[in-house]
């Protein structure tokens, strides 16, 4: 095996992995419930997804193929560092191709391509407690989860509707999992929330600084909180991707010059590349420009 000399497989020692694995199994048995774990120091700073990295390290084996995305992209410094970390410490194969991956670690996005039963997605979570901004006390939020007492969140959402005409949450939009536990989906855009519902893949969540992990098994109900008179709606920029022409993907706005030029492109870079390879084009495609 081509792992770096002197390292434990996937960096963590075996006792730590067993501790995280036991917590993960309980997390799968209680979908959406946060479980404390003895988060370890990792050779990457908090904010680099140390919770997600520890979950991935506890799960990963030599047969896995790992993909790491940051805001949808495989090529950011963060994504490249994490991918290299596991290639070095676990000797696993890595990929940018969503369909070729068995484990996908992500920050801030869910791939556009629907995931399969034989895949696991690991989310990096900065704040696992969906009630943290409404109730600072850990003891109190734990009690609210125990009683499924989520009126405070409904009040907050309804205040938004009264004040703005809609719920003013565009990221980390709270979800109800398996009809029982209120859960923070991590800072993915609300656009991605519907992908979590009845997803075929196992979803695991790790928060390093807050020392919590949680999970959603495959084919589990994940409902974004809403009201009968104000149903949950996803929004996306009203444009087609400038590179591949997609009208249903989540878009990033890219400033192209200092004249205020803007380009909307798929945030999921693998999705965009796969579409372009299949011959799809957008308004800014080189071919399109040549034709003009």
């Amino acid at each position: 095996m081509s792992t770096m000399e002197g390292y434990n497989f996937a960096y963590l020692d075996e006792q730590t992995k067993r501790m995280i694995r036991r917590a993960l199994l309980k997390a799968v048995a209680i979908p959406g419930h946060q479980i404390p774990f003895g988060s370890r120091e990792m050779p990457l700073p908090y904010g680099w997804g140390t919770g997600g990295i520890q979950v991935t390290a506890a799960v990963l084996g030599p047969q896995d193929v790992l993909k790491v995305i940051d805001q949808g992209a495989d090529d950011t410094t963060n994504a490249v560092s994490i991918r290299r970390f596991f290639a070095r410490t676990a000797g696993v194969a890595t990929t940018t191709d969503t369909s070729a991956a068995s484990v996908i670690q992500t920050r801030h996005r869910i791939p556009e391509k629907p995931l399969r039963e034989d895949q696991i997605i690991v989310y990096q979570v900065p704040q696992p407690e969906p009630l943290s901004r409404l109730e600072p006390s850990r003891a109190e939020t734990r009690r609210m989860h125990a009683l499924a007492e989520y009126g405070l969140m409904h009040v907050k959402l309804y205040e938004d509707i009264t004040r703005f005409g809609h719920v003013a949450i565009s990221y980390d939009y709270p979800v109800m999992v398996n009809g029982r536990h209120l859960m923070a989906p991590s800072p993915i855009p609300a656009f991605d929330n519907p992908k979590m519902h009845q997803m075929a893949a196992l979803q695991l969540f790790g928060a390093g600084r807050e020392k919590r992990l949680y999970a959603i098994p495959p084919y589990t109900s994940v409902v974004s909180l809403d009201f009968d008179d104000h149903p949950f709606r996803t929004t996306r920029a009203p444009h087609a991707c400038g590179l591949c022409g997609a009208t249903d993907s989540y878009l990033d706005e890219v400033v192209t010059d200092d004249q205020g030029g803007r380009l909307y492109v798929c945030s999921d870079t693998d999705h965009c590349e796969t579409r372009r390879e299949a011959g799809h084009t957008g308004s800014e495609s080189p071919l399109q420009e040549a034709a003009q």
Partner: protein
Amino acid sequence: MTTGTDLPGFADPVLDAQSAFRAVLAALSCPGSIHDAGAGLTPPASLAPATAAVLLALVDGETSLAIAPTLQPAAGWIAFHCGPEIATTTLAGFVLAEALPNLAALDTGSDEVPERAATVILQVAALGSGASYTLAGPGLQHPTKFAVNGLPVDFAARWTANRALYPRGIDLILCAGGRLAALPRSVTVGEG
């Protein structure tokens, strides 16, 4: 009576533990699905390879384990390779048995700390044959048939009582030979 300490654990403690964990993770993620575990293990005669693999992968000095009387011949091997704190059935984090214990008498956790609830590792005669049940719940796209040889005749009723405690409740890992399956507390079990 052999203590079993002369019998080895995992040939590759790191990779074999990972592989056994993934089998249990997949089993809990899809209740009733059957997975290989413990290939190549030569545990004491009273333990199936899958049972031994689950113990080696999950049980250690940070956990407590209750061992049912019929599996006591394996206690020496478990102490040597896993080293758990031995606890009574009512307090243990893991309960190892061949006959389903009274689930209500185990630690079912609390509403605030439901994850404290015990995991029962139950060694049964066979998976995929025997009494048939219909499973539904998280992990299952559609209600699914599951057959086990080795559960009590009133299992569905006993599980329904366990399910009623949710989010408290016992999680069950079933082992037979070199295969395992699992029933998380979230699953509902019907007869037939």
